[in-house]
């Protein structure tokens, strides 16, 4: 999980902010209900967004539920009407596949940590796999495709991003209605492409030092380990093209009471994160918040 799919909270109404928080808490609660306490640590913003992509119509009534991070107070959280359970299943699957990926190319301490985490989530993975067989198969197929492309030092941004984007697109299979499914698929594909390329941009200095695969190292000619001004613009343009495609799909989703949140994330959240990553302020801001 990347934590790149975020709303611009300062542009959300008070009510929408509360709903976003309630969805995040709802996902955390759903992870615990379905997979036990440990799974709570897998809660993430990307799958919170998935909830908003999949949930249409009237907003559900929030419930009060206990929060382990704040033991003496209860939080508002959305009840699981199907979408949150699905997002919880997918959170487990994605986390496990991400850990497996880390096993492959991380440094030794990272590999050990990934191995331990995998052991910890073995049971949860088995359960999630049984529930979402099709998604798990697609994850496995696309990640091995991605690994093959990485091993071959693929110089095409599109092809490398395609494997990951196709993986995220499978999250639309929750949709039964064909039009809504197609719109969700296109939306998630381009959000996946955004994630992959934003991640590549952020990791570029690190990958350049360690010599790891990064599509930007092969697509562009780096100058002193950095992208030239022109190449940087080409990259930003192509990622913005994906945000535009995601927006065009968003406008064709069935109406929802949470349209404000959906639109905020695509129209304001993603561009803000992209530009934060590009000028190096994204993580700094996050670290600032944690202190």
């Amino acid at each position, binding site marked *: 999980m990347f934590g790149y799919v975020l709303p611009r909270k300062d542009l959300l109404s008070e009510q929408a902010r509360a709903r976003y928080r309630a969805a995040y808490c709802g996902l955390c609660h759903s992870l615990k209900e379905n997979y036990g306490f440990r799974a709570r640590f897998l809660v993430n913003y990307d799958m919170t967004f998935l909830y908003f992509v999949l949930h249409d119509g009237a907003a559900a009534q929030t419930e009060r539920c206990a929060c382990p991070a704040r033991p003496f107070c209860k939080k508002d959280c959305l009840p699981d009407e199907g979408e949150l359970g699905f997002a919880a299943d997918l959170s487990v699957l994605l986390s496990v596949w991400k850990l497996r990926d880390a096993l492959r190319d991380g440094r030794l301490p990272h590999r050990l940590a990934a191995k331990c985490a995998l052991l910890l989530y073995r049971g949860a993975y088995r359960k999630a796999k049984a529930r979402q067989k099709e998604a798990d198969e697609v994850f496995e197929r696309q990640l091995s495709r991605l690994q093959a492309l990485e091993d071959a030092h693929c110089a095409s941004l*599109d092809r490398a991003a395609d494997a990951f984007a196709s993986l995220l697109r499978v999250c639309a299979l929750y949709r039964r209605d064909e039009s809504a499914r197609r719109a969700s698929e296109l939306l998630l594909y381009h959000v996946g492409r955004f994630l992959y390329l934003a991640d590549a941009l952020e990791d570029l200095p690190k990958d350049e030092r360690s010599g790891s695969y990064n599509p930007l190292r092969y697509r562009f000619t780096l100058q002193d380990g950095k992208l030239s001004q022109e190449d940087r613009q080409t990259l930003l343009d*192509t990622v913005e093209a994906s*945000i535009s495609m995601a927006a065009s*799909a968003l406008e064709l989703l069935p109406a929802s009471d949470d349209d404000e949140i959906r639109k905020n994330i695509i129209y304001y959240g993603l561009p*803000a994160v992209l*530009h934060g990553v590009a000028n190096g302020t994204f993580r700094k801001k996050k670290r600032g918040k944690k202190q």
Partner: protein
Amino acid sequence: MKDPYEVLGVPHGASEEEIKKAYRDLARKYHPDNYANNPLADLAQEKMKEINEAYDTLMKGGSAPNPSSSYSSGSSGGAFGQVRELIRQGRIDAAESMLDGIATHNAEWYYLRGVIAQRRGWMDEAAQNFRIAVNMDPQNYEYRNAANAASGAGAYTYRQQEYGNSQSDDLCNLCGTMMCLNCLCDCCR
């Protein structure tokens, strides 16, 4: 048929002006030009039809201006026409192998290569091909429109909209601090 007021997103009993404004905004959003080369073009077209019907019903026969695409796609017949037809049917792989079989690499050839890439979501490759097509035939509106869309300057541009990164860093830090305080303050809500 759906409630026309709901389709246009206006309250029952809205004035003619309000209806016209809502219609114009929606028609701009779902205009075929915005969905050129987009795999969801058919869905946008359906939506446009629904909006037109709702407008017609509310305006009692005053028929909606038809915002058809301002260019006609499929400028050429022959092999390129067939490639376009395959793309229209969503048979992208077939379209690609047919295009690969064409020896004339003119502006339209590069344009269609771009369309195929775009239909797959491969925006970098699409932009590169559209750029070649525009260089070869700078007057063509269709190619220029596609090139803009593939480089993030398309219909759903949010460039003009406020990013927030244009604000000064001090302001961002202030926001961050306020958010921290907010988290602490609303612990028990």
